[in-house]
């Protein structure tokens, strides 16, 4: 028996690099031995991706992408399809957990400097995954055709209308109609179940390839590959398999317990995972009292709503201040000139373009700035463990702003709320814009030779 198995493996191996792949990516792939719990979230994101695809396939077997039938078909899944309620809750809970997991994964990258060289490309692929995931969730949210699905999509797509000249045409092109309608539902369905999942899977593959080329960072932010033993193996590395496979299995089971607790006991999570207004079918005539996206979009939604006429004045100030700071700091005369030109263009644009468009621009930029992190950070160390008070303070302010913005995004945009959101927005961006300075001046601690416990 044993022999037969070995022979067939050899047969395959002569024609397909099974052993090679196994060794390179598992048995002889060396990962730092000091991973902490924040390092589970990558594997967990893979687990969730599989959960979403499998539950999504089963939903697609019963769901009807038709404006007259979509809402009823989801209720049909909830009632008449065998285990349909479980599949549906798995998918809706999975969507929110996906974002929890991905946000934790990104937070890990932020505090341990995982975006720094040589991992810039790994970080960029990750950001593309994140943006794709947001598109995937946005389109999925239209499918149940509830009233919040409908109005949420209406609000977000109409934002494209703010773009000068082509805006209205573009919004109409995306919707396939003058308002959100059957045509929109059909194309969102196609993108949600086929196009974007394919892109996501492809990107995740690229992400892993990039990871295995450069190797993992770790909570100390030092490169284990710079300290190899006589056998050529990093002294602080351990083979991914079996060490991290067993550890990740443990984490996955723990994660599934939390997942099951929400899915079986509080699938709506008080309106945070499934909104109350989405239990009413889409109604063109009845706007919900507050149009709020699901929680994972609310920080960006807050930034959008905070960009009122008043905010434009704040933006003038920020632009001028940043320009002065840059001109003083850079030595090259051409760089000084370029800064002045860019600032002038921004100031003119602030004058001409409407605040609504600036809201869209800021919302887009709030994601785009993440792409710049590898180049904004000038610290000699990567990990927060060896950084000084400046970075720690900046990060704390950023995280708090992110949560405050997220919360405000679920609340009515009253005068006070908008003021707070404006402050939050500015602080959010300053974390990135000022990073070259505070990471340069920050006092860092000496790095250890070897990873610490």
């Amino acid at each position: 028996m044993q022999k037969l198995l070995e022979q067939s493996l050899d047969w395959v191996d002569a024609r397909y690099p099974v052993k090679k792949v196994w060794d390179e990516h598992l048995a002889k792939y060396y990962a730092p031995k000091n991973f902490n719990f924040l390092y589970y979230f990558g594997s967990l994101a893979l687990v969730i991706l599989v959960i979403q695809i499998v539950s999504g396939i089963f939903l697609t077997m019963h769901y009807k992408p038709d404006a007259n039938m979509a809402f009823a078909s989801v209720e049909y899944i909830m009632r008449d399809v065998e285990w349909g309620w479980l599949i549906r809750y798995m998918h809706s809970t999975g969507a929110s957990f996906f974002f929890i997991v991905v946000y934790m994964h990104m937070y890990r990258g932020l505090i341990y400097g995982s975006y720094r060289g040589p991992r810039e490309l790994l970080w960029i692929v990750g950001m593309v995954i994140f943006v794709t995931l947001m598109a995937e969730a946005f389109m999925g949210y239209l499918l149940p055709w509830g009233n919040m699905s409908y109005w949420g999509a209406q609000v977000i797509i109409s934002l494209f209308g703010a773009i000068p000249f082509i805006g209205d045409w573009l919004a109409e092109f995306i919707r396939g109609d003058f308002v959100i309608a059957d045509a929109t539902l059909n194309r969102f369905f196609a993108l949600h179940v086929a196009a974007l999942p394919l892109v996501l899977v492809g990107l995740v593959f690229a992400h892993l390839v990039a990871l295995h080329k450069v190797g993992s960072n770790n909570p100390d932010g030092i490169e284990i590959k710079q300290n190899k033993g006589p056998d050529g193996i990093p002294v602080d590395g351990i083979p991914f398999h079996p060490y991290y496979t067993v550890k990740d299995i443990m984490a996955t089971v723990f994660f599934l317990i939390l997942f099951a607790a929400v899915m079986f006991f509080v699938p709506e999570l008080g309106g945070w995972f499934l909104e109350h207004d989405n239990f009413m079918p889409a109604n063109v005539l009845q706007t919900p009292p507050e149009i709020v996206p699901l929680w994972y979009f609310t920080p960006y939604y807050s930034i959008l709503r905070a960009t009122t006429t008043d905010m434009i004045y704040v933006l003038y100030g920020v632009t001028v201040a940043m320009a002065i700071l840059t001109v003083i700091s850079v030595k090259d005369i051409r760089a000084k000139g370029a800064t002045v030109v860019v600032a002038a263009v921004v100031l003119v644009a602030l004058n001409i373009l409407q605040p609504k468009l600036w809201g869209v621009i800021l919302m887009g930029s709030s994601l785009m700035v993440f792409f710049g992190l590898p180049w904004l950070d000038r610290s000699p160390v990567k990990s927060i463990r060896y950084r000084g008070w400046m970075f720690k303070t900046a990060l704390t302010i950023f995280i708090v702003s992110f949560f405050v913005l997220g919360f405000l995004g679920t609340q009515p945009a009253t005068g006070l709320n908008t003021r707070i959101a404006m402050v939050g927005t500015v602080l959010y961006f300053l974390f990135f814009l000022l990073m070259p300075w505070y990471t340069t001046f920050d006092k860092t601690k000496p790095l250890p030779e070897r990873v610490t416990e």
Partner: protein
Amino acid sequence: MIKKIIIVLLLSVPALGLAAGNNLKLDSVDIDLSDKASLQRGARTFINYCLSCHSAGYMRYNRMGKDLGISDELVSGNLLFAADKIGDLMKAVMPAEDAKKAFGTVPPDLTLVTRSRGPEWFYTYMRSFYRDESSASGWNNVVFPDVAMPHVLYSWQGEQRAIFKEHEGRRVFDRFEVGSSGSMSEEVYTDTMRDLTNFMVYLGEPAKLVRYRIGTYVIIFLLIFLFVAYLLKKEFWKDVH
């Protein structure tokens, strides 16, 4: 520090549950889906008094019968006024156009009303109709001002009048005053509405009858699995220093 902030924020999330509707205080209602008798009483009220105008168009009669322990014969014999077949969806008796003519609006489907507006809202709404000569139907409701629905359970509850008071320049609801009494005492009417609310919660999500139980088994299984996975991890990691 940051980790702590995140944990605190995450834990406070369910408590911050997004509130729906207006700021009137709603009465809490004790929902118990294991109380089959209560669900059956609620079902009877709903089918006899509400289906004439409203649909519960995502729900089938036989599914309800099966879940509530009412045999198909009993459902067909006693509850099937509005449909021909026991496997039919629970559609309203009154055609939508007629309803529109009579009330100026189509009575909305009620299958999911406790999921969209909440059980407390429904429970309070059903007990908050009052006499209002100025409205078309002669009725109004404090939870749903200028509602087009008449108080269809008027013969049970009797007639109440709403007393309003001035508060910061606005007219706000203060209390009810009993006008004429109906065939039920106040307690009996309240209990009947609690049964109806209980049924409506079931109607909104029949899976609720089973999902807690299944969830408990799943979590127990996973806990055992976690223990085994932990031992496995510990065994392998013994030699990592």
